[in-house]
């Protein structure tokens, strides 16, 4: 490919994108002569350009579009929707021809996401400068370098402040010395030192002010430069509208697509990933959401289904809210599909939110048939994956018969992220703040040793605890955590882990850079950022950390299967207590079943053989004492020991528990995990 063809490819892509948008606009406003004129001009430009580079096939197709549009110029006929559809199909073929010319050879190719991002809309050409992302990055890099130079200046300022303080001390000492004689010398020195102090104060004022200015200016320039590389969301709206339209046409449905907020801007590769996710959302909405015309009319809805995309900037995030007025999601059908796929047992009670969340699981579809567009169950899990990769989130809400809303929230830019800076063994590492759920001080005594490693309590969770050193130097260059250390609690997906660090240094915004060539792909490292001196700091990768932690748990889980133990049944009406006890017991290697009432517990106890019951006292219906007494009276259950865990702490209560036949009585207020696990092991007849 020579240079001219490179230019053509980029121009042709831009024209096709612009023509697509304009034809769709023309369909909505068939009498708008301005749009028609613009379409004609674009088709004509494409024809000419194609001929210059001898792309005759593209040239002919552009000519066909031009010819087809020309008769509408005089305004006697108005263009129809079918006609526009035909022209869009031609455009699609042109797009295929352009693709055959090969990938763009722009320097931006080092970022594959950015190279596939659609060009800005063509009508923006007069007002916007097209800037190569690679050039932009070079500019940003230069600015970072300039900012780095401020580091030593800051150091100078600190030194000056220090000198100023010292001068004050010396003067004080001299003043004291005056009392003991040699007044003349003292006064002379005092005057000199006062002068030094004055000049130092000047220096401090000047440097301080200059630094403030430089920092402010550079910050401004940096943020301006950063916004230059952001693309308007409008650039992807044409593609989404086209997808809605194509899907609807193939399925014989009637759908309108509208959007608001196309001028919101975000980073090219974020936008291109969001576009892929939204394509799934839109196709899903047309295929599963929007009903056929007859069905809609029968339900008193308008014949044409409506899909609306609302784009809104929220601080450093952008929300894409896609709403359809279709049939909504049938929660019962989702539950059935989940049970079929083994994603849920079907027996548990899932609330609306938990059920809808299942829609994002891989391989789940409620569609009666798999169509060309969706129904394979590979759509919405992609949406979740994209949101997680972009450090964003996705939410779904739906009303049966009224429609579905899917909201994807992603950061405007991935290049600058807020992080928590932590210190471990003399080195500093950065944890992306969006994954941090909290921090707490941890003493040695609070680190509980279980079969799969240490855990600490965070709220009512027993979170696996890993010293940061085990992550950063798995080969084990021993740096022990201090007696009291800090723990950073990190969540990724459903996994929580606590990282033990010497101390927390604070939060900051950093430019996250990918690891350079030759650095490999070390586990748990997302990239690096520079400190004020221009030295690298590692940025941890929470999803990789949790994968490693989950793998560790699986390994230990498989190794501890060997001694066959009976499961434990936990009965408590408080969800929090159930979860807490479950996490502690599972961490200790036991299999745990849960019941929310004593009645349900009794049913479960008869259906399965348990090694131990752990029961609360105060529950609606049958209480824990009654449960204990009932099981003691049952020959098949009387040998299964019972631990009562309750907030009732009086001696009378204890006696009551003992009378009912409980083997142990633990008061919630005095709850101690080690004691609890030891008691459980004792009663199950195994060593803890």
């Amino acid at each position, binding site marked *: 490919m020579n240079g001219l063809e490179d230019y053509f490819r980029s121009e042709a892509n831009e024209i096709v994108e612009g023509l697509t948008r304009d034809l769709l606009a023309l369909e909505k406003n068939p009498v708008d002569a301005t749009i028609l004129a613009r379409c004609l001009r674009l088709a004509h430009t494409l024809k000419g350009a194609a001929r210059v580079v001898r792309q005759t096939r593209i040239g002919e197709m552009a000519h066909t579009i031009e010819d087809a549009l020309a008769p509408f110029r005089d305004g006697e006929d108005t263009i129809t929707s079918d006609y526009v559809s035909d022209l869009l199909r031609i455009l699609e073929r042109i797009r295929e021809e352009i693709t055959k010319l090969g990938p763009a050879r722009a320097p931006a190719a080092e970022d594959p996401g950015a190279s596939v991002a659609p060009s800005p809309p063509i009508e923006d050409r007069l007002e916007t400068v097209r800037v190569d992302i690679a050039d932009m990055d070079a500019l940003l890099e230069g600015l970072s370098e300039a900012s780095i130079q401020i580091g030593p200046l800051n150091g100078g300022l600190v030194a000056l402040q220090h000198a100023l303080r010292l001068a004050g001390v010396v003067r004080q000492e001299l003043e004291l010395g005056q009392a003991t004689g040699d007044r003349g010398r003292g006064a002379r020195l005092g005057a000199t030192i006062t002068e030094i102090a004055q000049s130092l104060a000047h220096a401090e004022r000047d440097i301080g002010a200059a630094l403030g200015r430089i920092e402010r200016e550079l910050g401004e320039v940096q943020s301006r430069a950063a916004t230059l590389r952001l693309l308007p969301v409008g650039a992807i709206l044409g593609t989404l509208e086209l997808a809605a339209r194509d899907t609807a046409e193939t399925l014989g449905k009637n759908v309108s697509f509208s959007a608001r907020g196309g001028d919101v801007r975000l980073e090219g590769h974020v936008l291109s990933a969001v576009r892929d996710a939204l394509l799934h959302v839109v196709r899903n909405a047309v295929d599963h959401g929007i009903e056929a015309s007859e069905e809609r009319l029968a339900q008193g809805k308008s014949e044409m289904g409506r899909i609306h995309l609302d784009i809104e900037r929220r601080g450093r995030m952008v929300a894409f809210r896609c709403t359809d007025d279709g049939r909504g999601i049938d929660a019962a059908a989702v539950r059935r599909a989940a049970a079929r796929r083994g994603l849920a047992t079907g027996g548990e009670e899932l609330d609306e939110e938990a059920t809808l969340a299942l829609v994002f699981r891989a391989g789940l579809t409620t569609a009666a048939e798999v169509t060309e567009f969706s129904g394979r169950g590979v759509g919405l899990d992609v949406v979740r994956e994209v949101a997680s990769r972009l450090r964003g989130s996705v939410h779904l809400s739906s009303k049966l018969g009224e429609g579905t809303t899917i909201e994807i929230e992603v950061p405007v830019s991935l290049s600058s992220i807020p992080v928590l800076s932590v210190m471990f063994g003399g080195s500093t590492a950065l944890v992306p703040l969006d994954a941090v759920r909290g921090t707490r001080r941890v003493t040695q005594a609070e680190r509980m040793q279980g079969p799969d490693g240490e855990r600490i309590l965070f709220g009512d969770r027993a979170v696996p605890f890993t010293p940061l050193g085990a992550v950063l*130097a798995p080969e084990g260059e021993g740096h022990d955590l201090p007696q009291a250390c800090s723990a950073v609690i990190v969540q990724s997906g459903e996994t929580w882990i606590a990282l033990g660090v010497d101390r927390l240094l604070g939060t900051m915004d950093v430019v996250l850079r990918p690891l*350079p060539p030759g650095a490999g792909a070390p586990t748990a490292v997302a990239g690096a950022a520079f400190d004020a001196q221009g030295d*690298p700091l590692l940025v941890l990768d929470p999803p990789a950390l949790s994968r490693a932690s989950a793998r560790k748990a699986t390994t230990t889980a498989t190794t501890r299967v060997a001694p066959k133990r009976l499961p434990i049944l936990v009965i408590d009406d408080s969800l929090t207590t159930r979860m807490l006890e479950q996490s502690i017991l599972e961490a200790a290697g036991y299999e745990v079943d849960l019941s929310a009432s004593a009645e349900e517990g009794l049913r479960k106890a008869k259906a399965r053989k348990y090694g131990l019951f752990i029961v609360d006292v105060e529950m609606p219906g049958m209480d824990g004492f009654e449960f204990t007494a009932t099981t003691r009276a049952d020959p098949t259950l009387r040998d299964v020991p019972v631990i009562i865990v309750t907030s009732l702490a009086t001696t009378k209560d204890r006696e009551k528990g003992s009378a009912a036949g409980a083997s142990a009585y633990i008061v919630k207020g005095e709850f101690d995990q080690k004691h609890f696990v030891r008691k459980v092991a004792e009663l199950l007849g195994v060593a803890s």
Partner: protein
Amino acid sequence: MNVHSQERDKPSEGAQRPGVAIASERHVAELRRAFDASFAAPPRDAERSGELVLAIEAGGQGYAIRLSDIDGVHECRKLVPLPGSPPGLLGLTGIRGRLFAVHALGSLLGLPAANETPRWLLIAGGAEPVAIGVASIEACLEVNPADLVQVEAMDGEGHVREIVTLAGRARGVLALESLVAIAKQRAGDHREGAQ
């Protein structure tokens, strides 16, 4: 390695053990003279200019590198180790706002004491550069291209492609592309799609 047997074979005057230190001092002095002289020399036209080579040391051995094979020489500042690194990958460093993976030259060459802390970093690898750490740079010298003698299969790994005699001592001229390739291979890089 043959390179070193050649060095030993060179009749450096007073090659007995006690004289080694003296010979070495003389050698360094000669290199320094040549280094200084290269600045004093008047600029020549491009056609007649020779090849610039760096005399370096890694893993206790002397080598040479064509200056045209590298993209930069920087003093080694702070190195940040990466978890689970392969041998020889010393860590990350920042040079003018850019990140580089630093590999020890000695380790790439398979020499003992390979993970020595480098004093200098040589940047090589074109569009996807890595930094190669060397213990010291002894001199930067201009040599007549005719003095760079091609070697065929002289060392098993194929990292030495020529021999150059600097200040009376023969040194292997390292082929950096094969060393960079080893560095990337060790790090298990799969930079797919990077064009």
